[in-house]
């Protein structure tokens, strides 16, 4: 592990240099909020941000992605054959990603990269990407990454971690990929490791001390699934939900998609689009039956998936990194921190006196 110092001049030069070998993504201010976008021309990442409005998952996993193209024109030799389109195979660099968001890719990877199934689209994009993180000095009051397996200076899922230092950045090079990127950028001015560790340690301690909110997840694994499923609080939690897809689309760890064919004349594409378990269409069967036909079951599914099924399936924490986006953007203020607390506190034994109405 090495440390390099990057001053402002080197920073600008480095980002420009990276564009010659990478598709560079970074935070860009659009209106009041920042979003991750592919940086064009002389565009620089705008690093003065808390966190982006949408998560950066689209850099790896676009909201709409063409998987295959096809033609139904029988005069052509390759009719009715799905073909992979040509893609821009240039490696990607995501610059300025917050540690919570970088960590989210590791959670998503558990789903897209299993011994049985590997999602080629996601994996290729992920493997071709170098993540340059940016430590979080000022977490939002609704962030809770420290109690969701991550932290403001967490290194999991990152190749490089930047922190503010003097007039530029100090970079901790964490992987070979990170090393290749910093060399390509010309960020090679070595910095004393002992001193750097001290800077990183102090910054992390300061930032962690600022967290106002946290969740408890210690009991989730031990409460039987069916007890949580049948818990009386779901109707109350779900009441205000309008079943929009805001939480799922903003979430860095929501990975579900829907496959659609679109054609014009004989030529078409098979694409996949983000989907949302909040939509009733998500589970509608061809028969017309819908196993999650009502709102309560859909809301329960979202929280049970993130906070129970995932926990049980992988035995490695919750499917949430504590970025707080869903808390901030939910139109009706459903708060995953509250829901998690209710689930974690739930005692099936104490339910003899049921809190729900007797009607």
């Amino acid at each position: 592990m090495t440390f390099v110092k990057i001053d402002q001049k080197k920073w600008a030069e480095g980002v420009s240099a990276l564009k010659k070998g990478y598709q560079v993504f970074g935070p860009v201010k659009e209106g009041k909020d920042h979003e991750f976008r592919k940086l064009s021309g002389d565009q620089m990442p705008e690093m003065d941000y808390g966190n982006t409005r949408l998560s950066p998952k689209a850099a790896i996993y676009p909201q709409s992605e063409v998987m295959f193209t096809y033609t139904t024109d029988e005069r052509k030799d390759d009719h009715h054959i799905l073909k992979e389109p040509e893609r821009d195979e240039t490696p990607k660099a995501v610059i300025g990603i917050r540690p919570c968001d970088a960590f989210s890719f590791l959670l998503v990877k558990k789903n897209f990269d299993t011994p049985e199934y590997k999602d080629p689209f996601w994996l290729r994009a992920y493997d071709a990407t170098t993540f340059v993180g940016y430590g979080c000095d000022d977490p939002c009051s609704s962030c809770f990454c420290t109690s969701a397996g991550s932290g403001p200076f967490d290194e999991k899922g990152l190749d490089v971690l930047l922190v503010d230092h003097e007039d530029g950045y100090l970079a901790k090079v964490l992987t070979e990929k990170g090393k290749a990127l910093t060399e390509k950028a010309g960020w090679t001015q070595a910095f004393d490791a002992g001193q750097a560790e001290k800077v990183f340690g102090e910054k992390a301690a300061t930032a962690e001390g600022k967290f106002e909110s946290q969740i408890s997840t210690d009991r989730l694994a031990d409460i039987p699934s069916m007890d949580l499923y049948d818990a009386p609080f779901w109707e109350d939690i779900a009441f205000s939900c309008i079943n929009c897809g805001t939480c799922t689309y903003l979430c860095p760890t929501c990975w579900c998609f829907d496959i659609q064919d679109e054609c014009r004349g004989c030529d078409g594409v098979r694409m996949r689009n983000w989907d949302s378990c909040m939509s009733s269409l998500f589970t509608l069967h061809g028969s017309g039956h819908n196993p999650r036909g009502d709102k309560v079951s859909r809301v329960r599914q979202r929280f049970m998936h993130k906070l129970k099924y995932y926990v049980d399936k992988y035995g490695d924490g919750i499917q949430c990194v504590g970025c707080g986006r869903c808390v901030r953007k939910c139109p009706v203020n459903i708060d995953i921190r509250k829901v998690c607390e209710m689930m974690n506190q739930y005692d099936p034994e104490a339910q003899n006196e049921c809190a729900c109405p007797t009607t």
Partner: protein
Amino acid sequence: MGIEPGRLHFSWISSAESTKFVKVATEVTQAVKELGPNRHFVKEKVKVA
């Protein structure tokens, strides 16, 4: 809103007014043909992302 002028027509035709229907349909077709191919609201093939 993005729909070219002249492409959207409204009419009120009773089920008994067959000649009016023919007349309006002919006029609408002609008017739209004269405008040439549609330029707005044309969906392009999905880009590879």
